[in-house]
Each structure stands twice: as C-alpha cells, then as structure tokens.
C-alpha cells in the first residue's frame, strides 16, 4: 500500500515538474506543433478534409472534458470500491 502511494506521488511530481523547471514555456499541444513542422516541410500542404463538427467554444469543450473525467473516474472507483468491499465481506483481508 505504502509502495503504491510512493508511486502515485512520484507520478504527480513528474507531471508538475516541467511547470517548475520551465515556467515560461507555452505548453501548446504536440499536434499543433506537428502541424507547424508539416507547414515547414511542405508549405503548400492543406488538410483535404475538415472535421464534421467542432465544439463551439473552449467552454463547451471543457464541459465535455469534465463530464468525461467524472464518468471515467466513476467507473474506476466503482470497480475499486466493489473489490475492496468484496474482499472485506469475505473476510479475506490481510
């Protein structure tokens, strides 16, 4: 259990470390940077197909994001709780 907490903390440190050691970077998406590389290699490259629908704004996008994170975490936590409870219920806890 303690090992897991250490691993999770380590992951959190790795995630936020860039913001500390490189605070002025833009942190734009790797895909938009790839678009810039394509434009540099082949300046006349144009997408030949455009998305059928796009979220109307950043706010709507973040709404979808929040819903997704909540639903995904819900499934995971249901699973975790189910198994913790099951083990306790069958008296198999260590």
């Amino acid at each position, binding site marked *: 259990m303690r*090992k*897991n907490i250490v*691993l*999770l903390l*380590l*992951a959190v440190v*790795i*995630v*936020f*470390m*860039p*913001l500390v*050691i*490189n605070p002025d*970077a*833009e*942190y*734009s*998406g*790797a*895909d*938009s*940077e*790839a*678009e810039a*590389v*394509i434009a*540099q*290699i*082949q300046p006349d*490259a*144009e*997408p*030949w*197909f*455009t*998305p*059928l*629908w*796009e*979220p109307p704004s*950043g706010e709507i*996008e*973040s709404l*979808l*994001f929040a*819903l*997704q*994170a909540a*639903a*995904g*975490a*819900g*499934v*995971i936590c*249901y*699973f*975790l709780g*189910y*198994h913790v409870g099951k083990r306790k219920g069958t008296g198999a806890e260590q």
Partner: protein
Amino acid sequence: MSRKIYFMVLTLLVLTFYPNPAYAMHIMEGFLPLPWAIFWAVITLPFLIYGLKSIKDTVEENPGFKMLLAFAGAFAFVLSALKIPSVTGSSSHPTGVGLGAILFGPTVMTVIGVIILLFQALLLAHGGITTLGANTFSMAVVGPLVSYGIYKGAQKAGLPRGLAVFFGAALGDLATYVTTSIQLAAAYPDPTGGIAASLTKFVGVFALTQVPLAVSEGLLTVVAVNFLVSHNKSDLLALSVIKREG
C-alpha cells in the same frame, strides 16, 4: 445482471462524452494523403476483427471479465484525456492502453481504442475520420502490441512484476508516438533530407515530449496492477496475467 447493464451505460457515457484533448497527439483530420489514409486503415482492419473475436471469446469464457474490461477501458479513457505538460515545453497525453493490453492481450485494446478515436473524431474534432486508420494503428495496434510483448518477455526473463508492468506500459506509450512520427514522416518526406530528416523533426515534436508522460503512465499502470493483484487475483490468474504462487 443489472450491475452489468449499469456498467455498459456508464461506459457508453464515457465514450459519448469523450472530450477533445485540445493538446494531444493524434494525426489531424485531413492531414494524411488519401493513399496513406487507406493504407493504414487496411493494415489496421485485421487487428480490429481479431480483437472483436477476442473480446467475444473472453466474455464467453467468463462473463465476470466484463467488469475488469470496463475498468481497463475506463483507465484508458481517463489517462488519454489528461493533458500533461512535458519538459519540452509542450503538452500531450498518455494513452492508457497498456493496462488493458497486459490484462487481455493487445487486440482487445484495438477495439477499445478505435471506439475512443471514433468518438473523438466525430464529436470533438480531434484526430479525424480520414486519419482514423493511422491513429488506430499507432495507439491501438502498435502501443498495445509493444506493451503486451514487453510485459510477457520481461515476465519470462524473470523480472519482478512491477518492472515488467512499468516497462510494458511506458514503452507501449512511447511506441505509439514513435509510430505517429513515422506515419507523418512517410507522408511528408523532407524535400532535401527525405523521410529520415522528417522523422527526426516529428520525433522531436511527439516522442521527446512523450518521455516523461510515458514514465507517469508506467507508474500509474503499476499501481493499477498492484491493486488487481491484491484484490482481484482470481481474474488475473484466470487470464494468465500472473502465475500461481506469484
């Protein structure tokens, strides 16, 4: 039974509202020339068909696996939605498919991956319909294959389980982005340096950014597997993820 239905509904919800990780990795809509789009789609198709059969067989063998499958799917959804900063000064997201590949084999995650990518392309203008084949190949074919292969190989070589899971998940994540770089380099060779010069540029954008994220994904996958070993050992034994007396 109702629990299973509840899970299916939840899973569907997750899929339906899968957000647009605005900062992310997949090849953008319309950016792969048609011949390449078709090429990657055709190559991906057999993995998808085999994956569907594999899911059917797994669930028929033991309907109880559905819950673990939902967990692996949810893990991939959440991880691939987390936009994370990297030391290179840009952002990307992990894939989260390594866990499912280690549990159920690589092609099961091809199916889950294609569902994620399809909804992203349709509802969130991320990735794309025309690049679906290529993106599925990198995230849901190569990534899981590498994760699965490394996990099984490390296990055979006698490495501790934690290390086997870590390297499986982390290198699978990284392999996805290397594949994306190769796909873009093949479609956009540098006018002077050719594919190799392009590849260097795309690897610099995608793969380097991904290194710390791959490490994080590896750590989180180890935690997930540790939990499963202590709380759901019977399923892992039945799926041959771990060996008896492990």
